[in-house]
């Protein structure tokens, strides 16, 4: 399985929803504390287990997250640590990039998510406690959702209801919002510690998973959110990112500061289905491909991006 070495520490990796072999990687210098950032667009060569870099974009500050547009196959958005978001178009020559710079947040933008059903809007989660809604054609945000009391680490659109999304925050709650409503519609005090990531189940629109600093992943049903459906323990340190599989109802993947990427099936008694400990530093980004079943990618602070098929060893060559 091929490996891609980035010059900076990796922060996030996302598969393109249009090209099966394309990924975007968000990286930041000096572990994201201070320094430049870079967005890589990489491609998996079909001839062999090699990864090529198609193009890379430099930014003034570290890039914490990246999201592909669902409407334009060559457009991606990068969340930069200085509070701005850069829109890149890989079909345009490099000198014409970035195409847009959207700066409204007062603090670092930590999470991005593009609407997979409506395909026209995306959300940004920032450490200034707010979530903003944007579209590519407008230079300013459409909505600001400010209710969290601490940094918002991640946002996720509901895969079935195009107006519903969830945000996970350091104030230990997950809020569910509806863009048609002025405020949040549900508040799930999920954990006793900060919640770093949340994701919706793609096949059951009422199930949401939250990953927290308390090393656990909890699955919640929004219809009965007082008690989690399932609690997945197994990570040794805080769980940084989770993603439900686009192809399997019960499968989700998580990456954690214990340098492992774990595969879970939350409907099974012994939920941990797979564990990959290929990273030598914090594993901070993981993604499952929407187009190819079983293809997954992860990146970490060890400046490596791995892409592998589920079931294979990511370090096998």
């Amino acid at each position: 399985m091929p490996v891609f070495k980035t010059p900076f520490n990796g922060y996030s990796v996302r598969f393109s929803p249009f090209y099966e072999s394309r990924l975007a990687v968000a990286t930041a210098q000096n572990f994201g504390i201070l320094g430049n950032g870079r967005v890589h667009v990489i491609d998996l060569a079909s001839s062999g287990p090699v990864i090529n870099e198609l193009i890379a974009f430099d930014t003034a500050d570290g890039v914490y997250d990246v999201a592909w547009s669902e409407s334009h196959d060559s457009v991606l958005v990068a969340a930069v640590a200085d509070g701005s978001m850069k829109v890149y178009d890989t079909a345009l020559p490099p000198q014409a990039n970035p195409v847009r710079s959207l700066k409204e947040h007062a603090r670092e933008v930590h999470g991005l998510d593009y609407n997979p059903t409506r395909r026209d809007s995306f959300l940004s989660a920032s450490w200034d406690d707010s979530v903003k809604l944007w579209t590519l054609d407008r230079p300013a945000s459409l909505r600001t959702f400010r209710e969290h009391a601490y940094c918002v680490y991640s946002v996720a659109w509901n895969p079935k209801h195009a107006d519903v999304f969830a945000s996970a925050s350091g104030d230990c709650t997950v809020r569910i919002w509806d863009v048609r409503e002025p405020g949040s519609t549900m508040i799930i005090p999920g954990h006793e510690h900060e919640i770093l990531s949340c994701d919706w189940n793609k096949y059951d629109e009422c199930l949401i998973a939250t990953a927290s600093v308390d090393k656990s992943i909890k699955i919640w049903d929004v219809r009965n959110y007082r008690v989690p459906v399932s609690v997945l323990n197994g990570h040794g340190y805080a769980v940084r990112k989770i993603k439900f599989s686009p192809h399997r109802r019960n499968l989700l993947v998580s990456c954690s500061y214990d340098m492992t990427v774990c595969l879970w099936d939350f409907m099974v008694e012994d939920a941990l289905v797979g564990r990959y400990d290929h990273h030598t530093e914090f594993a901070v980004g993981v993604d499952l491909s929407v187009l190819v079943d079983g293809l997954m990618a992860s990146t970490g602070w060890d400046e490596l991006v791995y892409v592998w098929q589920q079931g294979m060893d990511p370090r096998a060559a």
Partner: protein
Amino acid sequence: MATTQSPSPNSNDDKPQAVSEVVQQANQVQQDVRPEATKQGVPASVFVNSEPIREDQVSNAVKFLSHPKVRGSPVIYRRSFLEKKGLTKEEIDEAFRRVPDPSPSSQPASLSQDGQANSLSSVQTQAPIQTPQPLPAAPTGIVSSGRVARRQFQWYHAVSAVGLLAASGCGTALLIKKVIIPKLKLWVRKVVLEEDNVYAKKIDAKPSLAEEAAAAAKAAAAAASDVAKASQEMLNSKNEERRRFEEFMNLMDAQVQEMKSMSNSIRKLEGQANSSGRAFSDHDDHRASASSTKQSYANGNVDLNVQPGRTSTLPASAEPPHPKSFMEKMEMIQRGEKPSNIREVNDMPPNPNQQLSNPRITPRTKPWEAQNGPRQVLQSQTSAEGLNQNGVDSGLNYLVDDESSTPWWQRKNVRITEIENEDEVKAAGSYGVKTNEQPSVQRTWVPPQPPPVAMPEAAEAIRRPKSAPKETAMQEQLADEQSAARPSEVTDELQRITKMFSTAGKLNKVSSYQVALKVFKTRDTFYLRVRTFQHDFVPRDPKAKPKKLKYPQFYDPYGPRPPPSDKIVELADCISALSPEERGQIGPTLMERLRHPKMQTITVEGMELGSQGGAGAGAAKTEEKKEKTTFDVKLEKFDAAAKIKVIKEVRAFTNLGLKEAKDLVEKAPVMLKQGVTKEEASDIMERIKATGGVAVME
């Protein structure tokens, strides 16, 4: 921040709240969100919580919010605290309404009714800040404020009374100070002045001085008592107030204390004294600027656990080990140095109005949208045809017939997920089984069937160790670490797999296993084979010769032991020389002597040794016995009348049956008992004598 809909979060919430307040005040407590939602035109959404308001939670929240310390903290932290406790938005709003606090949702009207009390000065400073904000909500706000103001009258009465008391107490204290000091000074001066010419008028002056002093003292005493009374009253009222909230706050404080002590003890245990570790007491603040601002957040509210997430310390094994270079970088930045590898990058868009390029590909439907359910997804993956079930879903072409075009990342192995832990083999097996069956959720692990012909090549090779070229070739390949031939070998094997899939036709567990067996040969999945099939069958190397084991010289069931002492050897000889019946008596006799059940083994030994020993050296034994301390008891004769008694006695000594004892006695003179001590022998003799027989000790 441009284009935000509301100037602040509070008023953002207030507008719908103001509407809902009126509605909810009209109805009773049990209010659903649905009426409100339908009013706004939204159908009952699943993502809105439809629980009724819980009155106990609301009352707790009211108590919490009424506490003076809580009043001083920003509204957002109060809301966040209540949210973390599990209150819903409606409950929080209800609590805020019930508590008369100077939040923007409450009343500009009642604020204007405040008195001059000092204690309300802090409230007043907040009020002017927040009065401009409620103005947009003024019409409904004032309506509700009028209603609510009446309730708050009493509160403000009490508070203003306390304030007045305090003011009066302070005022009197000040006044008295101002009065007393000049009076004292005057008095002192008078005394000093009059002392000069006092001696003459001393007697006259004294009474007047004394009177004045007495008067002054009285005044002072009266003033002091007044002050004391005032302060007493103040204290009492304050104590009352304090007691009211003591319960609630004690609970919270206790919890905070517990957590703090826990974290302290944990930290002590761990002994982590990283100076920069402190910066990571909470999770994600890797940026120096971020951490400094958040410190200021922390210093705001120290006592109450109102802040979100800040005071929540992590459970045991808290901090993940940050990389060393990371710590170095953090320290460098905290010292103020900038890392050297940062460049100035201009990442602003060269043309902010640049048009985005036209999309070249139409967006694909997502797997969860395209299919009706997950069934078809799985079918399409593992079915023999390998085709996608729906025409729309063009992205899911996996095991197409044209293998050469599928890139490496699309070729999937069998659905056996690889795991590092060997403990999870079963989980992997179950997972693999599940996905190959019809996709119903299986909760119990169904053990997979064993493969019918485990490994034909291996079985053959074992039978014929010399002629197994294929197997050896495979093994050589497996053993080698060459990279050149590998990709092609992988592709060959995987092509074979896909062909098997296409020809399998029927989807069953056996075929999956056959495929898996083929799969094992590829280098990449060597580990898979070993891990997954550990429980089934691992063929041994057919080339290996059978081991020749060394056996010891003789069978020693008791294992190595020191050589027995002479005494033991002699005992063993004696015992081995016994006849079988006598050997049978060893056990009971010893039992009687030692009362130890373990000694029963000697009968076994006796039996065993009997087979080896044979019936020899009986004379030797008796000789030895006579030399040593053992004695025999011989029955010489007996009275015919006492025969029965003698028999009874003999039975008692020898544990023989009735018939055997009778025969023995009739054979007299006969040995009754052998190998007994002198005392016992004499004892036996006595008893036989008592019964009417004659016994002799030998």
